[in-house]
C-alpha cells in the first residue's frame, strides 16, 4: 500500500468522492498532487521530456474517464502508477513501430527529421538520456518496471509488489536481478 502524508480534507478518497459527484476542482487538486510523480514515471520509461509531458496528460485524462471503475482494492497511487507504467510501455511499443517506418523512409526523409529537432536541445542531456535508454532497453520489461518504479519513484519493495501485483519476495528478487543485469551491462559498455 502506498501512503502519503496529507491533510485529512484532501485525502485521495475524499477527492475521488468529490470528483465522482462532478467536482472538477477536486480533480485539479488530484492532478497537482500527483503530476510530478506521474511525469517521473513516464520520464523513466520514455527518456524524453516532451513525450513524458504528453503522456502525463493522457494518463490523467484516462484516470478521469475511468475513475468510476476504481474500486479502492489498492490505493489510488498504486492504481495511478500502474496506469502510468502501462501507458508508457504502450507508447514505447508504438514508437518502435513508428521508428521502423522512419527507418524505411530515412533515405527520403532524413533531412526533414533532423530539421524538426528543437534548436535549443541540450546535446549533453540528450546523450545522457540516450545512454540511460539504451542501457535500460537491455533489461526485460519486468526488470525495467521494477527498476524505474524503485529508482524514479523510490517505491519500497512492498509498494513495488502492490503496483506489479506480485509478492514482496518476488519484487525484491526482480529488483535485485535488474540491478545485477544493469551492473553487467554498464561494465560491458562503460
Amino acid at each position: 500500500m502506498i501512503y502519503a502524508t496529507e491533510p485529512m480534507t484532501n485525502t485521495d478518497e475524499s477527492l475521488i468522492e468529490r470528483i465522482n459527484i462532478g467536482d472538477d476542482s477536486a480533480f485539479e487538486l488530484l492532478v497537482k498532487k500527483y503530476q510530478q510523480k506521474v511525469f517521473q514515471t513516464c520520464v523513466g520509461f520514455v527518456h524524453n521530456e516532451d513525450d513524458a509531458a504528453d503522456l502525463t496528460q493522457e494518463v490523467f485524462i484516462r484516470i478521469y474517464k475511468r475513475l468510476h471503475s476504481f474500486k479502492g482494492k489498492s490505493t489510488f497511487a498504486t492504481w495511478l502508477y500502474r496506469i502510468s507504467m502501462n501507458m508508457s510501455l504502450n507508447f514505447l511499443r508504438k514508437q518502435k513501430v513508428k521508428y521502423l517506418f522512419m527507418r524505411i523512409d530515412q533515405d527520403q526523409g532524413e533531412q526533414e527529421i533532423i530539421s524538426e529537432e528543437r534548436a535549443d536541445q541540450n546535446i549533453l542531456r540528450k546523450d545522457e538520456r540516450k545512454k540511460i535508454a539504451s542501457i535500460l532497453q537491455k533489461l526485460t520489461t519486468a526488470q525495467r518496471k521494477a527498476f524505474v518504479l524503485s529508482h524514479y519513484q523510490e517505491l519500497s519493495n512492498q509498494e513495488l509488489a502492490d503496483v506489479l501485483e506480485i509478492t514482496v519476495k518476488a519484487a525484491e528478487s526482480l529488483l535485485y536481478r535488474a540491478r545485477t543485469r544493469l551492473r553487467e551491462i554498464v561494465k560491458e559498455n562503460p
Partner: protein
Amino acid sequence: MQCNKYIQNLTNIHSLDELSPEERDHIKNCSECEKETQAYLSFLLLVEKEKQTAVSPFISTRIMGKLQKTQKPFIPQLQTILLNTAVIIFTLMLGFISAYILDGNKIGSEQEEMVSQYFSSTSVGLNIEDNWLNNELYEE
C-alpha cells in the same frame, strides 16, 4: 574481502557513501572492482539526474483545459443537432400550413374526385390513366 562478495554487495548500494570501510579498502586495492563501481554508480547518478527533471507547472491547466474540451462538446453538439432538427421541422410545417392556407381551400370537385380515387380506390391511378389514355388530344 573477495571480489565476488564485494560485487554482490555493490548491487544494493546507490552511492560511494554507502560503502563500508572494508569495501572501501577493497576498491583501493582492486582496480577491476573500482572500475566496475565507478561505472555502475555513474550510471545511477545519470538516473538520479534524469529523475530531477521537473514537470511544467502549467501541466494541470493544460490537463483541465483538455478535459473540458473532451467533455463539453457532447452537450453543445446535442443541442446543435436538436436545434437544427427543430428548425427543419418548423420550416417544413410552415411550408405545409401555408400551402394548405393558400391552396387548400381552392380544391375543386375534379381534384377532390382524384384525391378520393387515389386514396379509396383499389386500383389506384388506373381510372386517371384511362382518362388520359383515352383522351381525344392523346388520340390525335
